């Protein structure tokens, strides 16, 4: 298994980023920081709240950087993973940075990709960048396309390309399969994870790329 996500206490987040309690709670109320990231634990000094370290620091850095340019309400649309644009279609997926030319083979129609279809492509493209074969990436794209509803709640969602090798006498068969699940993920020890894609981040990246394009 992969190591579990590293956690960071709230105090430490405030100290590292220089933001105040007021800001943190305000951003939570606005949906800029998802409720699911607030992990409450009791410690010897009483109740403390922890966050997934990488996610919270990246999010705060983005809010601080973008809030000079855009009102917070607009940032919510841009950053909050639970706010999914439904009415968007986009003509040229390969032009979006989270997808890119690597995904050319994954396209299945000339244009007008919906948001969830773009996420499916971006998931596949990400897998290719991590070493998946195009045919395997296609498997993942199809899985994501079939799970458009699940993608609407991307928090904690992980896309995995797993493989299993079965040896039988002179024959060795390699089976690859796609898994879409929420962390923490458990797989049996004979299954190897070939590619692991943080889908929450993919959704975020696609939104940001679209946000930049639509300006």
């Amino acid at each position, binding site marked *: 298994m992969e190591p579990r996500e590293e956690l960071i206490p709230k105090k430490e987040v405030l100290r590292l980023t220089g933001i*105040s309690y007021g800001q943190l*709670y305000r951003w939570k*109320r606005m949906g800029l920081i998802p409720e699911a990231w607030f992990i409450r634990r009791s410690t010897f000094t009483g109740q403390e709240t922890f966050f997934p370290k990488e996610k919270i620091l990246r999010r705060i850095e983005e809010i601080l950087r973008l809030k000079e340019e855009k009102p917070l309400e607009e940032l919510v649309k841009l950053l909050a993973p639970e706010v999914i644009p439904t009415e968007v279609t986009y003509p040229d997926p390969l032009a979006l940075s989270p997808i890119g030319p690597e995904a050319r083979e994954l396209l299945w129609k000339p244009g007008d990709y919906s948001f969830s279809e773009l996420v499916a492509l971006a998931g596949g493209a990400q897998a290719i960048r991590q070493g998946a074969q195009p045919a395997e990436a296609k498997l993942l794209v199809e899985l994501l396309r079939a799970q458009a509803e699940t993608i609407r709640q991307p928090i904690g969602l992980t896309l995995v390309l797993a493989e299993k090798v079965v040896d039988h006498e002179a024959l060795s068969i390699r089976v690859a399969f796609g898994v879409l699940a929420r962390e923490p993920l458990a797989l049996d020890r004979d299954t190897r994870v070939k590619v692991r894609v943080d889908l929450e981040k993919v959704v975020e990246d696609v939104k940001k790329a679209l946000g930049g394009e639509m300006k």
Partner: protein
Amino acid sequence: MSERNVRIAGSGTIEGGSYGQVKIAGSGKITGDLEADEFSSAGSALAQGNLKAKRFETAGSFTCQGDLEVEEGEAAGSFRVVGRLKATEMKLAGSAHCRSISGGYLRASGSLETQGNVEVETFRFRGSFKIGGLLSAEKVEIDLHGPCEAPEIGGGKIEVRAGGKSLGGLVGEVLEALFGSSKVRELRARVIEGDEVHLENTVAEVVRGGKVKIGPGCQVKRVEYTEALEVDPQAKVGEEVKE
């Protein structure tokens, strides 16, 4: 929005739908989801679905079995939302129960009970509450007139006062009826966090903040502060930690 208006005087039932004005005087029941520019009821009103109103006013008893969404609202008497209350500006007087509250400005006096979070920009409260989740606001002002309880309170500026003389009128009567004359004026919380925190009569495990004032009647196990700490001689603080 629709120009259809509907009015119940006496006793009646409204189906859901979209309306301009909805007025209930006496006893009214709404059987489906309803949307209105203006909703008012005096007496007793029961909404069996979700209700959405730009302006909202009730006096007497009001129950919504779904979610209630209001731009500007006022409720006096008994107010119950089985679902979530979302309000840009809401004033409550009397006894209120909701699953959770979110929105802008909330002023409440009397008693308030929620199962979940109360997350607003301004929370101005007099009376007694029991909040099941996080109470969070840019500005939290609590005037204790009975027992208050929330596991976690967080925001910009948090002020808890021990409450002045008894409240009169309807609110006073509600509190009297609920808590008798014992008048425990105390806030209990596990964690309180804010940039400026000023507490009285508060029992908490941890208080964290920038500028922290622990006033009379407080019992706090641990205070963590970054800028300043003042502790009243009539307060008990277990540990003080400057971060």
